[in-house]
């Protein structure tokens, strides 16, 4: 079972769904949401727990909406069970949780 080496947080309200981060992710950890944000964009979300924290996505993101985290040296890595929630839509007016639809697990850890 996969262990988390890194993760990203995406400011989805300012994400414009340009997909450049998705293109640049070597791990295919990112995808566009089905939902749109208040600006009408489908936004990027982390859809796998295989993020390595390589910062590629953050580097190419034109709107600087991605923050990248990596496991501290010697820090305890965590399991599926305790994934970091990846995103929260906060609508301009009131907060509404976004429901991410199931994405097929894939990649290295099948």
């Amino acid at each position: 079972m996969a262990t988390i080496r890194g993760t990203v947080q995406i400011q989805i309200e300012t994400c414009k769904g340009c997909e450049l981060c998705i293109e640049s992710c070597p791990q295919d950890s990112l995808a566009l949401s089905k939902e749109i944000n208040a600006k009408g964009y489908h936004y990027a979300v982390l859809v796998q727990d295989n993020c390595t924290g390589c910062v590629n996505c953050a580097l190419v993101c034109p709107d600087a909406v991605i923050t990248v985290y990596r496991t501290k040296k010697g820090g305890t890595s965590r399991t599926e069970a305790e994934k970091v929630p990846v995103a929260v839509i906060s609508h301009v007016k009131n907060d509404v949780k976004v429901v991410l639809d199931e994405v097929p697990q894939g990649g290295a850890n099948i």
Partner: protein
Amino acid sequence: MNLVATNLEGLECVWAKPATLTDTPMHYCPGCGHGAVHKVLMEVIQEMGVQADTIGIAPVGCAVFAYHYLNVDMQEAAHGRASAVATGVKRLLPDKIVFSYQGDGDLAAIGTNETIHAANRGENILVIFINNAIYGMTGGQMAPTSILGMKTTTTPEGRMVETQGFPFKISDLIAMLPGAYYVTRQAVHSPTAVRYLKKALTKSIQYQKEKKGYCLVEVVSNCPSGWKMTPVEANKWMEQNMFPVYPLGDLKVEGKLVEQKHQ
């Protein structure tokens, strides 16, 4: 910030938006290179600790609002005159870091004269030149840097030499001027490109501190809206069609022309 703090213990932040960028969401279209360049520039300014000494000049072009995002003192210049305005600022505040940020229409069309003479005087400034081969702000007209055959709203049949002449490689000309100290052509389409650009900008500002003279950093960039492509398509098109005309790399380093650069 509309992120909810969640259990991140055990994790350290390895990349976050630089504090030298304001929180104002940028108005650029999805995937536009302007945003990426803003981000890298401000990272550099933050890391070099020159925020308080930096004065930027915004162009007229899509980056006209740059001062909404770059958290440094800025002046908004008339279309094409950013290099002249930068000269005015730098000559009177010689110890500040002064940069102008200009598009291809701004720098290589209406502003050609001010651009070239600032370089020829060896003004001790940094000029950041966003070459997206089109007039983004006004809705996708041909730019002097548009490549041959490129379709724009003013070249519906594609750019033709007869009526529009050749793609204008102004950085190559500027590299020829003794006043220019460092001239380079970079991009922001990939993580690697972004890392190179960061180096180039860092160098330029270092040079300016050392009063070495004029630095020009051209960034070959995209304009998904003007090109009528998705950002991903746009970057692919750029790699395939623009890089051959505008090859990435240094044109002049520490006052010496990098050979091979002469067509």
